[in-house]
């Protein structure tokens, strides 16, 4: 069924009786050409691009819960391509280009809104660093505009510009940055992958990975054994547990990142605003809720909930930046499980087990990467070679020293 405005009107006139489920609910087959473990954003987009780009349609996505029940279902939805380092820059640039055609591609409204992202700076040194970052973005073919204080004031008059500790000197505007509807991204990829023949199998937890003579031969699941010569692990915060089923230890530590949503308000924040020095960023959803967050709680955790000190810190940072939000009531908060890598950059690579591939280490920035991550993971699984824009996301780069330390803070688990 193709979605369109005409279809919405027609269905509305006839009692909405014509809508059908957006994807099938198949039972697992005994064997597939490829299995993707994990039915989140990255797993679903990998499955879709395996079918679309490589003609591999005998593919199953195995999800232990329901599709999109992990971090793709709860995040702060920011889409941007403002990276600096070669290796990251071309990858996120590729992803943003895919985002810009995603709705047409998937025939699904993912509510991608390029409302502009503004990263604030608060000193001469930080301005220089942001100017350099902006130049790198422009060299990559993306867009960046360095705003001075008055330029920021024109766009964001409600900020406290004269804060004593962090007076606002200006901001780096990334006009093509913005937000998207997170659930819709999962649903759009799921529907499009299903339409091309991919089996999306829910409530199917992988409990073991079968390896014989150094080659993967399939997986054990709560719905029986499934054979496959190619298996991709795309499970974000649970990467260490799933990789351990194949005897692997990963350079990953899982941490909590909290985020918050207020009650719905009238439109007040038109952009995505990032206040890095205060560990705070905010946007407003189309429903009106202010969506904001801060930094990690900074200890390894799978609790999917954080502690109050970070809640207090994020609220303080928000009040420091924009005192006007003080009367907004927080509706809910949550903690996501982040697969943190030592250098803060992701991994899309083969593993030492033949036929077993891994896509992980997305830290707290996986959402914007969903299209390109799937694109590159599919390329790797189909061809056995890293895609050009993901060639530096190597599993062994911490041992070889080929780090991608975008923050420049070091290669250690508690630094990103």
């Amino acid at each position: 069924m193709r979605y369109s405005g005409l279809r919405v009107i027609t269905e509305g006139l006839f009692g909405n009786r014509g809508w059908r489920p957006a994807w099938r609910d198949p039972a697992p087959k005994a064997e597939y050409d490829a299995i993707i473990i994990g039915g989140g954003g990255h797993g679903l987009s990998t499955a879709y691009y395996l079918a679309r780009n490589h003609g591999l349609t005998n593919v199953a996505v195995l999800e232990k819960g329901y599709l999109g029940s992990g971090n793709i279902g709860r995040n702060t939805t920011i889409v941007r391509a403002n990276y600096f380092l070669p290796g990251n820059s071309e990858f996120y640039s590729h992803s943003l280009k895919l985002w810009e055609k995603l709705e047409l591609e998937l025939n699904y409204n993912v509510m991608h809104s390029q409302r502009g992202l503004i990263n604030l700076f608060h000193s001469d040194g930080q301005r220089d660093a942001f100017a350099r970052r902006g130049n790198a973005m422009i060299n990559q073919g993306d867009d960046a505009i360095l705003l001075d204080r008055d330029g920021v004031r024109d766009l964001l008059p409600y900020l406290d510009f004269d804060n004593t500790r962090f007076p606002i000197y200006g901001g780096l505007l990334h006009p093509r940055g913005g937000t998207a509807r997170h659930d819709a991204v999962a649903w759009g990829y799921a529907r499009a992958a299903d339409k091309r023949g991919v089996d999306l199998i829910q409530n199917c937890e992988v409990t073991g990975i079968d390896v014989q003579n150094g080659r993967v031969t399939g997986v054990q699941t709560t719905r029986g054994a499934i054979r496959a010569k190619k298996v991709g692990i795309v499970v974000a915060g649970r990467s260490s547990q799933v990789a351990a089923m194949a005897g692997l230890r990963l350079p990953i530590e899982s941490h909590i990142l909290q985020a918050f949503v207020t009650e719905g308000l009238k439109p007040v924040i038109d952009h995505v605003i990032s206040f890095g020095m205060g560990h705070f960023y905010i946007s407003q959803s189309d429903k009106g809720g202010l969506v904001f967050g801060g930094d990690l709680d900074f200890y390894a955790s799978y609790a999917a909930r954080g502690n109050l000190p970070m809640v207090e810190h994020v609220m303080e940072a928000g009040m420091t930046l924009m005192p006007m939000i003080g009367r907004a009531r927080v509706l809910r908060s949550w903690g996501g499980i982040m697969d943190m890598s030592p250098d803060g950059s992701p991994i899309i690579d083969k593993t030492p087990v033949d036929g077993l591939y891994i896509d992980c280490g997305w830290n707290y920035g996986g959402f914007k990467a969903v299209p390109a991550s799937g694109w590159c993971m599919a390329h790797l699984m189909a061809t056995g070679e890293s895609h050009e824009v993901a060639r530096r996301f190597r599993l062994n780069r911490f041992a070889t020293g080929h780090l991608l330390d975008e923050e420049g803070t070091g290669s250690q688990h508690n630094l990103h």
Partner: protein
Amino acid sequence: MRLTCPHCGPRDRREFYYYGASEYLNRPGPEAAPDAWDSYLHLRDNPAGVTQDLWYHEQGCTAWLKVTRNTVTHEILAVEAVAGGTK
């Protein structure tokens, strides 16, 4: 979340700095192979359940502590000073 420091008693999480898995206590010898260093610095079991990690009582007695805790429930099971002493 509170940690019970062996020297200072129960203290708020904000007084502590998290360093990482207690593997940092098992530093390889100078003759160790590169793989041992990679394992020590980067590779982690990262368990969902009971784990041991190192915390620094930065705003208290400045002792390094080995904390046994559950990463799923945030329950603190034991805290001992790396330099010795348990409470």
